[in-house]
């Protein structure tokens, strides 16, 4: 029996060595890539100067055609939207952007059904896990995720439990896909109306600490901050508008601005036709051109 316990202990040691080695390889791979996720792009960005950036979820990523806006306005700007990103991710991106001594004059943040989400989004934040030893990332998780120490301290754990997103496919992609321009290219949805299930836009009427910090950061850095809500096809509640109008600086509501259902992929997302239409609206009303 003693021999078997030693045998199992030997396997535990092999497991530990393998996990440490794989953790090192994976983390190095993510740190050496600057184009695979929005956080990687911002993390690798230094001393850049922009006229504007858009931050938010897929309702920014898939809705705001920044290439069109740049061409139309002559401004230099970026769309840094990430699917499922909420206030926690937006704050992290903004902090990282500014900590790397980048400058921007205007920041446009899309806000809507994710208002109450102060904690890291389970989908969007996965791409930040390889960087848990960045102080900003760790603190973005720490207050809301009691398991974060396991993820940070148990070697390779964060990669195994998120293998479909930051597993071997992503590590291989890190090797071959390091083109920031390509990563930042606007990619709208092509499909038309896959489903019309109304979006749950009910929010709890209370302040969001991440948004408060974002407002404070922009004020300190003299950045013009604008909040807006992208178009929805169908929602189950409109109370959020009143709250946003009363509590957010420079709030623009585009919720009902696109009513043609052929402009939508689903009730939450515009398709290419809708995104182009909406981007024109953004230039005309939001950017004042």
């Amino acid at each position, binding site marked *: 029996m003693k021999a078997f316990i030693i045998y199992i202990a030997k396997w535990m040691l092999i*497991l530990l060595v393998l996990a440490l080695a794989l953790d090192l390889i994976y983390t190095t791979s993510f740190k050496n890539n600057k184009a695979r996720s929005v956080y990687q792009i911002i993390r690798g960005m230094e001393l850049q100067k922009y006229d504007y950036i858009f931050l938010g979820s897929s309702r920014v990523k898939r809705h705001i055609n920044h290439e069109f806006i740049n061409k139309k306005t002559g401004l230099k700007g970026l769309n840094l939207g990430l699917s499922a990103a909420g206030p926690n991710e937006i704050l992290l991106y903004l902090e990282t952007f500014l900590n790397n001594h980048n400058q921007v004059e205007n920041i446009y943040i899309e806000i809507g059904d994710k208002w109450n989400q102060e904690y890291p989004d389970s989908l969007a934040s996965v791409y930040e896990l390889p960087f848990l030893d960045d102080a900003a990332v760790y603190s973005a998780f720490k207050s809301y995720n009691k398991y974060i120490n396991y993820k940070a301290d148990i070697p390779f754990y964060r990669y195994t439990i998120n293998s479909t997103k930051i597993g*071997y496919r992503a590590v291989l992609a890190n090797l071959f896909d390091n083109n920031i321009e390509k990563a930042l290219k606007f990619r709208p949805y092509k499909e038309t109306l896959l489903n019309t299930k109304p979006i749950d836009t009910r929010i709890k009427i209370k302040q969001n600490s991440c948004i408060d910090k974002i407002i404070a950061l922009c004020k300190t850095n003299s950045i013009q901050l604008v909040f807006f809500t992208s178009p929805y096809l169908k929602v189950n509640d409109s109370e959020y508008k009143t709250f946003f109008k009363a509590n957010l600086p420079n709030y623009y509501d585009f919720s009902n601005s696109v009513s043609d259902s052929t402009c939508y992929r689903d009730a939450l997302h515009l398709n290419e036709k809708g995104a182009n239409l909406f981007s024109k609206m953004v230039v005309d009303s939001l950017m004042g051109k």
Partner: protein
Amino acid sequence: MLFLPLVFGIYWALSKQLRWQNLWIFATSLFFYGWWDWRFLSLLLFTMSNDFFLGWWIDKTESAKKRKWLLVFSIVSNIGVLCIFKYYNFFLQSWADLWALFDIKISFSYWQMILPIGISFYTFHSLSYTIDIYRRKLSHTKDYIAFGAFITFFPQLVAGPIARATQLLPQFMVPKKFDLELAKDGFRQMLWGLFKKVVIADTLAMFVDEIFSHQQQMPGSMMWLGSVYFAIQVYADFSGYSDMAIGIAKMFGISLMKNFNLPFFSNNMAEFWHKWHISLSTWFRDYVYFPLGGSKKGILKYIFNLSVVFALSGLWHGPKWNYIWWGLLNVLYIAPVNLFFKSNKKEKNLEAKTYKDIPAMLFTFMLFTFSVGIFRTESTHLALNLPSQLFQFDSKFINYFFDSIERYALEGIMFVVMLLLFEWTNRSQEHPMQGKYAEWKAAIILALILIFGIFSDYKAFIYFQF
């Protein structure tokens, strides 16, 4: 995480007190089962106690007629419980559908019921005890604790292999001595089973689910790919569980029967069924097929008997007509082999197989793939559509592979090849983690589990639902 080391440690600490050791296994197995759903512990205990008592009664009864009635009671009570919990709605719905053909409407209310996990396994497991006592192959045991340990032994309780009383019960009657080499082998086999489950089965499951949930929009090529993946998935999932169960049992000094013997290296479907889910197919062979007369009463009777066995086998998997069609399709595969190609009946030893056998193996695999595709479809309507869909090729093929999310489906081929290569090159051994370089192979498997394993999207073992 803690359950296995704790049960293992205390089990061997009690190795000099057989009764306490069995009690420990019995109690922890009940805890293990109750952890899934404690409400069904009573059902498990009922089945077990019923057969314990009936086994004793059958054994001590001399009258052949009375023995037979007692056996019938055991079968009816076991299968009755199974029917109520698993097939009640299915039988009523099928009955109503039958009358609907004659425009007679029968209304009934569905019984909302949760299927007790592992019920099909432990029912058959327990039935083998009373049947073997009836056949005088086994004497009853007076030791309820040992009998409880035999029925509930946790590695095989919820998904087999379906142990036979003649093979497993005697192992709980004798003291066991810790065998280091056996335990090491069991540990490596468990690792191999885990690899098959979390690397092969769960990766392929992502693609299979995607393909079959959009069956109506999929071109034939994708349905072939989905069916091939599902064939490998269901094998890796179920044989993976069996390997883990057998491996863990070895660590406890218990030998469970082999459940899979590299079925994808079979030259025909008859051979395939000798190597696939062996514990179930031999159960049906010994307790249904042989008593019906087997193949000794003419061709028609043989085909009838085979059909009964495969229809029951299909039904055993679940209350769906797809499963029954799937079972009956296998009769079409097997009967001609056994009736007209008698030379094929002599199975080649796995070690003697060479690359020249590959065409026959591939053909067998395609037959299985076709049948298992039907098994996987989500309704009878879609099952009936599948054959025509599989032979309908169109230009969407290229788009699906390279222009959409399904392009990732191609990486599944890497996993299929990985599994088959491991099995082929180690076919002379009980499992690939044996023989020369066993420890090195296990270390590679551990690394592959860490790199390729799917831990983010937990999928229960497919056979848990049966």
